[in-house]
């Protein structure tokens, strides 16, 4: 911006002169000093302070700036002296000039003394006149005269008339003086249409004075001030209030200012109109005289009108006039006759055109019309580029590029200023909707064409002219820098051509330090790019755009010989470029960097860069450096230190394509793993002359690196692919001999280093890195690189070289090919579990575990056994192993160290109780190899076990043991009623606690049937009934007790049975609930047995217990029990008794008994034929006895006895005799458990009472 007069660029605003605010003369130096440090005297005088504050406030209103888009009514305020004079308006023309009768401004081209005379367009001085010398509003600050206040001595004193009069006269006199001064100023301002406003400062007391109004009116009249906004009175107030005052003063006067500039505009427009009409006649009066041409006048007037509009803040009007002025200016430039190139006026006009362009752009930007602004700017540049060609300063001249750079730069500066305040840089991301609608509107574009305006709009929304897309100023700075670079190029060409003197501006151009300018522009651009770079980018440190600019800066540093600076930049830039693998950009960077390093004499850096460049290969141009350059450099220089120079290429492009392939993914400890390391030289770079002395191949930590040394071979092998055998590498040998081979790569050739490696411990083996050593002269350079690197464009094809002639590969299709896993050999342990399924319940079931070490190492074996919980009911199982007993897990049963070939047997016992079903055992056999104790001491053993995980392995076995019961038992239970004589109620024995009252319960007959189930035979040692008599039940006797036929011990084959019957007396107490309760069986069978294996072996003795079933005696109501002897002798009388019992708990019974003799009866009966038994109370019993004499032999039926319980049956219509009471023959009294309905059927009683033909028939065997 400095290249243009500031007057032509600044934003114009109405000008206000402020007079009478000069600092007091006593302090001539104070105006600049801030009012914050006023001296004590100033503080005393409020008016001095007021003046200072006012001045401050006015000055802070507005700073002249180029970008001021906000439309506030602010003035450009200039403090002036009270006696300021305006520049002369018009000069009388010299009398001898006949053509110019009218008076002209001293700046007019028509005035000979004017700098524009005779054909200038407009000069910055004209604007300066309007911004600095002539205001639109003149504000004059004056002090209203005040007499010191007169204090009457007493309120009672009469007004001092004399004094009053005197005061009035004095005031009048002072006011008249003041009015005269104002009138003087008023005259000078109204001449020019300038608004004059007077501000009278007065004390606060004065404001309340009733005489003030009169005085003010007097002053206004006297001085001829306007009635409106022309006279203010201000008393000393606070700063805030002062600012308000200044603000409102501007508001009040803004209209006047606008009027002022409007008047000017009107005047200029009149002149322009008159001029354009008169132009034809006016031209040829003096053809030889140089005059401003009509186009020039148009430019002049339009420009003035534009300026006045700008003063008024009318942006659109100003824009139009500026554009008109510019258009006419372009017409003028179009003809060399009007504006001959390289004249003073031409140069002025160019400056004017450029600055109008800036103004137009700026005004467009005020309205956010970015496209229009940029379009105007680019059009300007294009037009003037075209003109420049005509003027002989086309693209081949430095002047052209200087001008172009200036245009870009000024736009950048304008945008930079704008963005600091109101301007926003738009994003050019297309709105997604725009694309969508675009697709829709395309087919109907024909219809749109008719609506022309809409078409334009839609065009706007459909796309963007990229050259009209506003970007941040960094871009334009960049452009300026690029143009300046071109300017420098042209200039340098000119110097080479030595046609220096001819070129205009050459002398000036020689003074220009182009590189500094370029650097400055790039730096500005860089900063702006940095500022506008996205913050949320992952690349937090630096954007690529900024790196690009940085690269340009580095280049410029290089060009200007500041190599150290350039190198610093290159280092930083290269980092990102390397990382993102943009070799194409890195290549030129490295060359320039190398050039810098050469210039700086940094040999190490040069070597590094040359080596890195080897990786990048050659470019099309011959700017790059190859291996020869490196060799040359190494030969000619020596390093600064003796330490080897390490050139780490891990970040940058590698020299070789390197790859490691292992043949198999996994090997065992001690087994050799074959690998191939292939190094392929690039085909586009010749590295055969590199002085490679050795190649160190580094493996996983524990391996010593393997060195391959170079030996010169006389006959260079022709083959492109060569194989180098490295032999075997293992962790054990640390002094591996170096391999020797010819390490010279021809372009594109490939070395395949093959070898095997093995490890004594399990690990992951790989080739970690490869270090190339170059030695030449005194240089020792190490180039480490990764064992797997690919040059750009190379493809990782994993293959195994299997034949050299012809070259054949075997593809390795594995995910992981560059490492190999070393694992321990599995332990050769043979484990067998032998047992004889199924297991029996209650048996210690032996499972023999046989572990045989088939390995050649000592193995320590530890076994864990887990008995899995079962969901079988009542199953309580446990295992016994090695004196440990557990219902779950037995851990760590040691088998000790098993030497090779030895087997160890251990027996695990499984004990199952409860129910049959499968039992599951998990057996884990853990083995660990024992280090050979003979070779290493105990210390080293512990070290070894710590240093790497010991060689352990584990095998798991799951064993399912089916379990069956050896003997099943089934019970058959019947109940008999008690027949014993009932003790009477008064029998004292009843009350004995030992008294066994089985009246209610009777007896239970339990027959148990035991069956051996197999599949193995059992050797039953004994079987007995163990009694657990309690107060409800006791075992009376058992068949097994009387067993003397030596049935035990005996061998029982599967399916064999034996049984036992026992009698149990029951004595449920009175509360016994027959419905729900049961009496636990008062004993259990204990059977001791052992299994007999088919081979005759016996297991250990086992004992099974079978508890007696729980007993549930049935309940009775009214019952008749008949007892007769089972047999009788003919004609020998026998007695038959019938016991009628009322066992009902609450009801008494009225029972009738009727003997129903039959003719066919085999008995002669004596006794009751029919009768009623006395009423039986609950628990009562009555016995009836008959005598019978059998008269027939054989099974004879006893006479039928009918027992009735006489109860009135309410249900029947016929009154029945009552319920029949069951007559039970006690000999056959056998009832089932009460709830066991199905069993009841089988009981004899049920059969007899079930309605069968033999029902109720009791027989006696009568023998003769």
């Amino acid at each position, binding site marked *: 911006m400095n290249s243009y007069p500031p007057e032509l660029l600044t934003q114009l605003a109405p000008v206000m002169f402020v007079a009478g605010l000069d600092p007091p003369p006593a302090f001539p130096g104070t105006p600049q000093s801030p009012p914050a440090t006023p001296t004590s005297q100033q503080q005393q005088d409020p008016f001095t302070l007021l003046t200072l504050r006012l001045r401050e406030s006015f000055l802070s209103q507005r700073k002249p700036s180029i970008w001021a888009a906000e439309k506030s009514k602010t003035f450009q305020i200039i403090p002036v002296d009270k006696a300021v004079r305006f520049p002369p308006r018009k000069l009388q023309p010299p009398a001898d000039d006949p053509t110019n009768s009218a008076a002209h401004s001293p700046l007019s081209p028509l005035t000979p003394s004017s700098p524009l005379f005779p054909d200038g367009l407009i000069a910055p001085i004209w604007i300066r006149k309007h911004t600095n010398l002539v205001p639109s509003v003149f504000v004059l600050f004056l002090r209203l005269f005040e007499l010191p206040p007169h204090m009457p001595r007493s309120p009672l004193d009469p007004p001092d008339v004399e004094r009053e009069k005197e005061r009035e006269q004095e005031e009048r006199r002072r006011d008249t003086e003041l009015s005269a001064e104002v009138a003087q100023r008023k005259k000078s301002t109204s001449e020019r249409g300038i608004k004059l406003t007077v501000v009278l400062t007065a004390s606060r007391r004065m404001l309340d004075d009733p005489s003030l109004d009169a005085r003010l009116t007097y002053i206004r009249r006297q001085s001829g001030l306007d009635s409106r906004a022309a006279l203010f009175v201000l008393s000393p107030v606070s700063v805030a209030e002062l600012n308000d005052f200044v603000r409102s003063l501007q508001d009040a006067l803004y209209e006047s200012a606008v009027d002022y500039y409007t008047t000017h505009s009107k005047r200029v427009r009149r002149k322009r109109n008159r001029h354009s009409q008169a132009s034809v006649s006016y031209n040829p009066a003096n053809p030889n005289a140089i005059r401003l041409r009509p186009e020039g006048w148009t430019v002049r007037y339009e420009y003035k009108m534009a300026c006045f509009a700008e003063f008024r803040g009318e942006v659109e009007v100003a824009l139009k006039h500026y554009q008109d002025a510019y258009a006419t200016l372009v017409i003028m430039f179009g003809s060399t006759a009007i504006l001959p190139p390289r004249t003073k006026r031409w140069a002025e006009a160019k400056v004017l055109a450029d600055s109008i362009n800036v103004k137009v752009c700026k005004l467009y930007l005020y309205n956010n019309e970015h496209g229009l602004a940029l*379009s105007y700017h*680019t*059009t300007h540049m*294009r037009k003037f580029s075209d003109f420049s060609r005509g003027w002989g300063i086309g693209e081949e001249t430095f002047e052209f590029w200087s001008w172009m750079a200036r245009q870009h730069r000024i736009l950048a500066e304008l945008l930079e200023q704008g963005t600091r305040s109101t301007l926003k840089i738009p994003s*050019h*991301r*297309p709105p*997604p909707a*725009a*694309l969508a609608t*675009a*697709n829709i509107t*395309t087919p109907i*574009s*024909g219809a749109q*064409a008719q609506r022309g305006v809409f078409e334009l709009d839609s*065009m*706007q929304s*459909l*796309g*963007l*002219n*990229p*050259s009209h*897309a506003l*970007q941040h100023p960094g*871009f334009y700075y*960049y*452009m300026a820098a*690029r143009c300046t670079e071109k300017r420098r190029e042209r200039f340098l060409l000119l110097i080479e051509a030595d046609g220096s003197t001819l070129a205009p501006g050459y002398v000036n151009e020689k003074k220009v330090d182009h590189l500094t300018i370029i650097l400055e522009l790039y730096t500005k651009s860089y900063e702006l790019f940095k500022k506008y*770079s*996205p913050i*949320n*980018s*992952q*690349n937090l440190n630096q*954007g*690529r*755009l900024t*790196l*690009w600019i940085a*690269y340009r800066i580095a280049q410029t540093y290089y060009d200007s010989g500041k190599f150290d600076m350039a190198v610093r930049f290159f280092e930083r830039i290269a980092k990102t470029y390397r990382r*993102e*693998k*943009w070799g*194409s*950009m890195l290549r*030129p960077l490295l060359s320039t960097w190398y050039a810098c390093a050469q210039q700086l004499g940094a040999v190490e850096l040069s070597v590094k860069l040359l080596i890195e460049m080897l990786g990048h290969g050659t470019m099309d141009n011959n700017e790059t450096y190859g291996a020869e350059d490196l060799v040359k450099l190494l030969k000619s220089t020596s390093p600064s230190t003796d330490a080897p120079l390490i050139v780490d290429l891990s970040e940058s492009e590698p020299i070789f394509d390197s790859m490691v392939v292992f043949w198999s993914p996994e090997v065992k400890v001690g087994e050799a793993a074959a690998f191939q390391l292939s190094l392929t030289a690039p085909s586009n770079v010749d590295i055969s002359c590199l002085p490679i002395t050795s190649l160190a191949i580094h493996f996983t930590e524990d391996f010593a690196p393997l060195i391959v040394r170079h030996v010169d071979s006389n006959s260079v092998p022709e083959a492109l692919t060569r194989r180098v055998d490295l032999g075997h590498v293992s962790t054990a040998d640390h002094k591996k001999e170096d391999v020797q081979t010819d390490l010279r790569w021809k372009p594109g050739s490939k070395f395949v280093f093959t070898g095997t490696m093995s490890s004594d411990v399990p690990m992951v083996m790989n080739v970690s890195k490869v270090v190339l050593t170059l030695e030449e002269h005194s240089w020792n350079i190490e180039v480490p690189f990764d064992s797997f690197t690919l040059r*750009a*464009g190379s*493809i*990782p*094809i*994993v293959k195994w070289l299997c034949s050299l002639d012809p070259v054949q590969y075997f*593809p*390795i*299709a*594995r*995910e992981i*090919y560059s490492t190999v896993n070393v694992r321990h050999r599995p332990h050769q342990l043979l484990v067998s579990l032998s047992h004889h399924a199924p297991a029996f319940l209650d048996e210690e079931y032996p499972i023999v575990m046989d572990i045989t070490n088939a390995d050649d190492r000592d193995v320590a074996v530890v076994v864990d056994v887990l008995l899995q919980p079962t969901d079988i009911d009542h199953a309580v199982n446990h295992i016994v192993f090695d004196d440990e007993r557990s219902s779950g897990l037995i851990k760590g049963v040691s088998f000790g160290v098993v030497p090779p070939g030895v087997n160890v047997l251990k027996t695990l016992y499984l004990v199952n109780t409860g129910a049959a079903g499968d039992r599951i055992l998990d057996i884990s056999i853990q083995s660990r190899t024992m280090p050979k104790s003979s070779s290493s001491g105990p210390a080293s053993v512990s070290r070894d076990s710590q240093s790497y995980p010991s060689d352990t392995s584990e095998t798991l076995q799951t064993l399912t043991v089916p379990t069956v019961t050896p003997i099943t038992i089934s019970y058959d239970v019947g109940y008999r009623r008690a027949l014993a004589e009932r003790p009477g109620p008064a029998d004292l024995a009843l009350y004995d606690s030992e008294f066994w009252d089985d009246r209610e319960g009777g007896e239970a007959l339990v027959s148990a049937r035991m069956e051996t189930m197999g599949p193995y035979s059992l050797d039953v040692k004994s079987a007995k009934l163990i009694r657990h008599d309690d107060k409800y039940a006791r075992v009376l006797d058992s068949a097994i007790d009387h067993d003397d036929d030596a049935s035990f011990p005996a061998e029982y084959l599967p399916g064999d049975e034996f049984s036992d019957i026992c009698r149990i007396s029951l004595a449920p107490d009175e509360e016994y609930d027959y419905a729900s309760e049961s009496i636990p069986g008062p004993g259990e069978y204990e059977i001791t047995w052992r299994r007999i294996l088919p081979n005759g072996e016996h297991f250990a003795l086992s004992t099974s217990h079978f508890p007696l079933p729980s007993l549930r005696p049935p309940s009775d109501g009214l019952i008749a029990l008949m007892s007769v002897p089972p047999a009788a002798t003919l004609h020998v009388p026998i007695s038959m008794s019938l016991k009628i019992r009322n066992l009902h708990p609450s009801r008494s019974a009225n029972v009738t008994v009727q003997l129903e003799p039959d003719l066919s009866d085999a008995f002669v009966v004596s006794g009751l034929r029919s009768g009623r038994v006395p009423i039986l109370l609950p628990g009562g019993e009555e016995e009836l006895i008959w005598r019978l004499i059998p008269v027939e032999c054989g099974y004879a039926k006893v006479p039928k006895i009918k027992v009735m319980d006489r109860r009135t049956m309410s249900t029947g219509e016929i009154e029945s005799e009552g319920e029949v009471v069951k007559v039970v023959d006690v000999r056959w009294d056998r009832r089932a458990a009460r709830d066991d309905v199905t069993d009841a059927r089988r009981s004899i009683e049920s059969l007899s009472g079930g309605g069968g033909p033999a029902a109720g028939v009791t027989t006696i065997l009568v023998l003769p």
Partner: protein
Amino acid sequence: MMPNPLRLNAVAFISPQNHPILIRTFSKQDELKYHYIAHTSLDVIEERANSSTKSTECYLGLLYAIEDVAVYGYMTPLKVKIVLALGLSDTVVRDVEIATVFKALHMAFYSSISNPFLKLDAPNAGNDQYPFLLVGGVKWKNFRRRVDEISRVVGTVTPVSNT
């Protein structure tokens, strides 16, 4: 009004890892410049791709204009970036046209990458990037041919005629 045919100066394909796949320049001079342009465009592409609310739109619009080229960006759903450098002419460039060109380029890339024989060269490259980098390599000519063809067509015919 007939819009001027677009002048393609360069096309760049950049892998999701920001490595160049193919940079094809159609003006003989200043090939390197387009490498820089492609690289720097990544900044703007990343900014646009990150800042925008989840948009499925691939076309990213004008990235920037510099010197004599206007740079447009496009990002495929699999994050392959396509950068187009147009010769700067003082006309409105319609987004539809550019988006069409981009789609054609995307399809060209897509059909080239779908070549099953590409896998032959990198049979066990687990990394998906390799086929991307391969397809731009010298060995596989089809991709270049497709891109060149698009450039030729764009340069001669106006893709969308406008009354």
